């Protein structure tokens, strides 16, 4: 299997997965109000998602089965079903938000209302899912997503006072006019936005579909090391440009257009167009990734055949679940429900589900009899357990904070 292709799985997982509508909104909102005072969260989320993706990848290499497939046989049907129903609800919200994100990107390019673009986005997804082979899709969205790097260039171009940025990044506390409740709420939102488990499943299911074996462990780890930190850097870049352009003016980000505005301020029309392409690739890649991941989850829970490698007719139930989720999400997007509010609610719900999805992987990866020499080492267990512990705390805080800060709008 050509090594170059393998790398795009990593970049797609990072760009499409790490940077999706949740990031584009949450990072910009956080930057505009807190500067880089929450940038440290990205260090934790990148470490956590890298640790669990590598773990899920190892499980997939050794057992030729994605990590969550083992979760149910390890944690029993009831616990598994609870996690599955929770993640399907969150996924329906996420796919709706991602699809709306694609439509908002079109609106930004044409000023035609985004609701008119939702059916177009839906048709595009169907076309790509049906016609485009898996590898080509991976490469296209892996490369298009690189347009997101324009946010990093924009930080440079805005010629910031680097010491001010550094002091902001090293003060983990709210700014004068914000309360601790709001600060903690956005911390939970960032964890939910950046540590989306569907990347882990997409990554490990991709490893199964690519028929990777234990000997491919280097390629798998390279993907993890290349892909996810890139996503972390982009997240901080989005926060930085939002801070530099919006903080003094007291602007609160409530629309995707405001996420892209700082790039226009820094790099002009060209920068804005590239940013729109990057936003389109990120939200479109994430739509596919969220859709596949949730359909994988369902198929694996019941043990059905699945996978993009099987022709749809051989995985009828998997395909049906995917189509049902896609059309439900499109229908949701066509209601006048504000996609940005849905995104924030979706990332908070996703944050509250993290323990259910991380714990099984940690248990399975520690099963010596199953994993043999690929079982978890001390590092994986240390970072893995720390991530699970923090995700339990974040999960417990998620809904109280969502209510207390009225979704961060206080």
């Amino acid at each position: 299997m050509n090594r170059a292709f393998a790398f795009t799985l990593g970049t797609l997982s990072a760009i499409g997965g790490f940077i999706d509508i949740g990031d584009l909104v949450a990072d910009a909102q956080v930057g505009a109000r807190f500067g880089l005072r929450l940038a440290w969260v990205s260090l934790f989320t990148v470490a956590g998602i890298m640790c669990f993706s590598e773990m899920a990848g190892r499980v997939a290499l050794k057992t030729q089965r994605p990590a969550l497939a083992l979760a149910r046989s390890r944690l029993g049907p009831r616990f598994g079903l609870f996690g599955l129903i929770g993640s399907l609800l969150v996924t329906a919200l996420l796919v709706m938000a991602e699809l709306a994100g694609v439509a908002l990107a079109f609106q930004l390019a044409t000023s035609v209302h985004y609701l008119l673009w939702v059916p177009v986005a839906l048709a595009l997804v169907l076309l790509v899912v049906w016609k485009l082979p898996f590898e080509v899709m991976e490469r296209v969205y892996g490369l298009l997503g690189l347009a997101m790097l324009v946010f990093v260039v924009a930080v440079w171009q805005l010629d910031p006072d680097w010491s001010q940025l550094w002091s902001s990044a090293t003060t983990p506390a709210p700014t004068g006019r914000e309360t601790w409740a709001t600060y903690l709420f956005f911390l939970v939102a960032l964890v939910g936005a950046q540590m989306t488990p569907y990347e882990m499943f997409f990554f490990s299911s991709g490893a199964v579909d690519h028929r990777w074996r234990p000997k491919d462990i280097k390629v798998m780890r390279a993907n993890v090391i290349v892909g996810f930190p890139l996503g972390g850097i982009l997240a901080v870049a989005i926060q930085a440009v939002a801070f530099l352009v919006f903080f003094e003016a007291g602007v609160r980000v409530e629309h995707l257009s405001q996420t892209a505005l700082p790039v226009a301020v820094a790099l002009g029309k060209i920068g804005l167009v590239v940013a729109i392409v990057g936003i389109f690739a990120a939200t479109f890649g994430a739509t596919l990734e969220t859709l596949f991941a949730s359909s994988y989850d369902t198929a694996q829970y019941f043990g059905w055949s699945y996978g993009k490698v099987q022709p749809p007719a051989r995985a009828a139930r998997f395909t049906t679940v995917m189509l049902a989720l896609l059309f439900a999400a499109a229908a949701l997007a066509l209601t006048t429900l504000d996609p940005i509010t849905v995104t924030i609610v979706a990332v908070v719900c996703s944050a509250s589900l993290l323990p259910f999805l991380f714990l099984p992987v940690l248990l399975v990866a520690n099963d010596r009899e199953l994993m043999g020499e690929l079982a978890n080492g001390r590092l994986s267990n240390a970072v893995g357990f720390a991530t699970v512990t923090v995700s339990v705390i974040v999960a417990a805080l998620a809904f109280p904070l969502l209510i207390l800060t009225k979704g961060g709008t206080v």
Partner: protein
Amino acid sequence: MTEHVSVRMTLLDAQIVDRDRLPIGRVDDLELFFPPDGGPPQIARVLTGSQALGKRIGGVIGRWLTSMSARLRRPGSRAGPSTFDAGLIADTKPMVRLRVQADELEGIAGLERWLASRLVERLPGTGHADK
């Protein structure tokens, strides 16, 4: 004592694949057979499908799963959960692999075949179930 293994770790909830590694479902329950001569019980049949799963989960969700899968059963096929003889199991590591192909199992993955024929094959470019 010959080597014996835990049912929870090797069989229960394990993924079932057929001879060609096509996933079929999961071991949702197992049926014990008590030989008339009073000898030790054996695992005779494997139950798979949401009817058996629903009964095992119990509670509101369990009952919903059981009734939904019963309703989706293809007309004319036997009532009760889909099941096959445990003798068909070739090995259990890393997953339960059968000696036969999926098509040779009567009444298994009925929902898969029903959906494949009804829905998915009609859509363009989805290939055919038996390809």
